[in-house]
């Protein structure tokens, strides 16, 4: 017997909905079987907390007296360049932006102590942020300079807007070369010294709804400690990635774009990160509720770490050169054990996304729903699944001259 979202929401309102986390659902399905689990459970909550570089915020500072038009000018927030190519007083700040005087990797490996993500964390924490701006001045917006402290409470809209978050699955990074390398998946010691991965596995949102049957445009979610929404598929969305028999992708695959009111969020769930030798990123906490509409969905949400496989990729050569080679596949159960075997060698594994925080998010969302504070949404439109034929294409621009960059 299938359920509808309206029916589940009615139960939530009455405080009668049965809500469990994706971890708990594994045991429920094991003990009771899919059929019974689908009847009994109404919602499964998921969670993930990791670095998501394609994140950013936009906000409106209100009009100064006299007016200034930042559009076309230059804007810095705590010395970090922000994007001012909108109208007069709308500003966008990306998580990976760096101060112009940061030495980057000139002193290799660079430390990247402060960037856009740290500004975002401090703004959300209620700290004053120094805004410095220059503009060219017009008859209607005569002012040319602005230097002021701004605070999130004084802004008009302040919105987190992430164009790609919550990768469905991800690479396991290793280093086959004989020197240490520094990547966005962390420091990789030479000669298969370690293997780094970044996924909440069985707790991760899109791994619990592998074909995006319930997760779509308009889905209400936990975002950065507040409430947000999925607004599109994320950039690089790749539903056609290869999948196992259980439907679970074995490569990066799906992504989501998300949005939410920054003023509701908390620095506990939006944290600036400095990745040595690589740059700055923002760790984002996301939790997505999955309505258990039928047995098929119940079965998807019972996916276990041992059923989810990730590709092992060499980040010293294959990855930077965009070669397709995959050294092997490994399950999240093996990864989480702390050691895996690659090419006959025992290799320690390091997670980059926090399983403990993913668990905490799934539990917070569960409480919100049980308390009737958070109702589920029916997507207004789906995000493209495998049947759509949507693929993540490589770069195909016409390059003017051959430039093979290397560090």
């Amino acid at each position, binding site marked *: 017997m299938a359920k509808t979202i309206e029916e589940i929401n009615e139960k939530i309102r009455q405080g009668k909905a049965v809500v469990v986390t994706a971890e708990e659902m594994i045991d429920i399905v094991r003990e009771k079987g899919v059929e019974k689990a689908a009847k009994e459970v109404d919602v499964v909550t998921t969670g993930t907390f990791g670095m998501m570089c394609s994140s950013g915020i936009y906000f409106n500072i209100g009009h100064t007296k006299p007016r200034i038009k930042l559009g076309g000018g230059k804007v810095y927030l705590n010395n970090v360049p922000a994007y001012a190519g909108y109208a007069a007083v709308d500003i966008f700040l990306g998580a990976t932006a760096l101060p112009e005087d940061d030495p980057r990797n000139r002193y290799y490996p660079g430390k990247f102590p402060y960037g856009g993500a740290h500004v975002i964390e401090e703004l959300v924490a209620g700290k004053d942020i120094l805004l410095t701006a220059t503009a060219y001045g017009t008859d209607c917006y005569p002012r040319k300079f602005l230097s002021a402290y701004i605070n999130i409470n004084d802004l008009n809209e302040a919105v987190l807007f992430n164009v790609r978050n919550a990768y469905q699955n991800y690479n396991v990074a290793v280093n086959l070369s004989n020197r240490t390398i520094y990547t966005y998946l962390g420091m990789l010691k030479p000669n298969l010294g370690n293997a*780094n991965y970044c996924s909440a596995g069985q707790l991760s949102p899109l791994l619990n709804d592998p074909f995006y049957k319930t997760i779509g445009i308009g889905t209400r979610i936990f975002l950065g400690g507040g409430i947000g929404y999925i607004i599109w598929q994320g950039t690089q969305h790749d539903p056609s990635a290869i999948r196992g028999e259980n439907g679970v992708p074995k490569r990066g695959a799906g992504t989501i774009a998300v949005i939410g009111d920054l003023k509701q969020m908390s620095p506990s769930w939006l944290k600036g990160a400095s990745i040595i030798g690589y740059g700055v*990123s923002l760790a984002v906490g996301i939790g997505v509720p999955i309505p258990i509409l039928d047995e098929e969905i119940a079965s998807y949400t019972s996916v276990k770490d041992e059923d989810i496989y990730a590709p092992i990729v060499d980040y010293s050569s294959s990855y930077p050169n965009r070669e397709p080679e995959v050294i092997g596949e490994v399950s999240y159960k093996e990864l989480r054990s702390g050691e895996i075997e690659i090419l006959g060698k025992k290799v320690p594994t*390091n997670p980059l996304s926090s*399983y403990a*925080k993913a668990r905490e998010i799934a539990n917070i969302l569960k409480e919100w729903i049980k308390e009737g504070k958070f109702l589920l949404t029916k997507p207004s439109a789906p995000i493209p699944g495998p049947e759509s034929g949507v693929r993540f294409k490589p770069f195909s621009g016409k390059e003017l001259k051959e430039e093979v960059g290397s560090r």
Partner: protein
Amino acid sequence: MRTERVVLHFPKHLADKPVIVNLVRKFDLDFNILKATITPDEEGVMVLEITGEEENFQKGIQYLKELEIKIQPLSQDVIWNETRCTHCLYCVSYCPTKALQRDEETYLVKFDPQKCIACGICVDICPYKAMEIRLVV
């Protein structure tokens, strides 16, 4: 090449002289100021990381000594800032002494300062700056 972390105690009359810059000018040494304070009796205390060729290094230290600057090697402690820690567990396998470990049930990180040798690896790699070097001067 040699890199050392040292604590320098400047007498009052040197506090406003360009002593450190001379390490670069005269001896071709690189420096990184880790900490600088003036004590209430106006003595300057500076924690410095000095890098350079062995010979230059010795000459530089000699120069500082001649100026009556007291030099001590630096000892340091590593502290875990729990509020910045996300329990990602990324640091665990890099720690050479198992001072950082994973709790098998909760998947939270555990830090045992007794086992820590202050090698600084976790300080460099923790993305959230949850591991900090505290200088014991």
